[in-house]
């Protein structure tokens, strides 16, 4: 049965899908949160909090971009 159902490949596919799908969506939500909160803090004249939220957004943006690029690079190397 193990040779019929390629258990390891199927398991790896499921894990990679869960990590990528949930992970990227979560980090993107943090990006949206950071941008939204940063704008609110600027409006409320709280520059430190605005900068912190903006920094969070920048990090989240970098992670999302890296994840997408990594995913495509992994695909092309098969």
């Amino acid at each position, binding site marked *: 049965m193990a040779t019929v159902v*390629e258990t390891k490949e199927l398991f790896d596919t499921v894990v990679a*899908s869960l990590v990528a*799908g949930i992970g990227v969506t979560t980090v993107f939500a943090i990006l949206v949160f950071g941008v939204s909160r940063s704008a609110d803090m600027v409006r409320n004249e709280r520059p430190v909090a605005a900068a912190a939220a903006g920094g969070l957004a920048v990090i989240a943006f970098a992670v999302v971009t890296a994840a997408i690029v990594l995913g495509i690079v992994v695909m092309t190397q*098969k």
Partner: protein
Amino acid sequence: MSDDVIIVIVVATALLFDFTNGFHDTANVVATSISTHAMPPRIAVGYAAIFNFVGAFISLAVAATVAKDVVDADVITPTVVFAGLIGAIAWNLATWYFGLPSSSSHALIGGVVGSAFAAAGADAILGDGVLGKVLIPAVVAPIVAFIIGVVAINIVYGIVGRERPGPVNRGFRLGQVVSGGVLALAHGTNDAQKTMGVITLALIANGNLSSDSDVPTWVVISAATAISLGTYFGGWRIIRTMGTRIIKMDAAQGFSAQGAGAAVILASSHYGFPLSTTQVISGGVMGAGAGKKVSAVRWGVAGNIVVAWLLTLPAAALIGGATYGFSQLFGDGAAGPVIIALFGIAATGLAFARRLRQGPLPA
């Protein structure tokens, strides 16, 4: 001479299938972006067509599976492949006509399996490959996409739920431009390869390629072109079903659904599983809907889609087998495929004429 005529008909039919695959599955890729107003319809469709084209060049693992792991290449003839393609195209057109997002992939594999069975019996079917590479991933993948959709949308609402809706919606709409592109890329990667696999199978069967040959470059380019053109002329009936009739989505749900679909399809393509992209994306859409509110999903529509999925493999197999039997009435030469191809072109032309009468794409 007869073999050459048949192989030309097979390649043309495969590319026609690829075209129908593109327009049938356009909905999968763009419906969520359109329904949340992340992109205007025309731009969304053009954008998806471009990424479908690019995606077709990323990997060939799925093409190898279709060419080598589903049916025994040694007993396959170009006429068998042709009959399988007719089974897939006929089922694609029928489900498109009724606006049902069924699986082009399963139609293709069902058609080829049915015609191979009609031609050479059960020995022609590689049961292990069909089960391990097609059927089990077909069950697992939409469930995984559903789970990702449910979990992701709950995390998203947990993170941004207290923020003002305006900036959040704008953010996720922008995100959908990216996730829609990745989803189109994933779709091109998985679906265009199925046609490449079938053309390669026919070329091997006809003696144009050895059984261990790679997919020729001209096959990759022509399949990529056909699916992207089909995507551009996409099926609006199915877009409506996918975009609004399963659930009414907000931008965060659209992003979560597209992310779920892209992740599952790209990961599966990497390992050579020829998935139904339709099933996967529908799973993501239902998950993103059910994660917010179970009753938000129109389960009756979802049930119709499930019925179409269940029917796809056997129906396409039946049509593929019947087509092979009909072509054999005219002998082993090119006469059968030529007559069927002419009939198929006429039927496809009528279907497109009817579609055009429905008017231009909404702006």
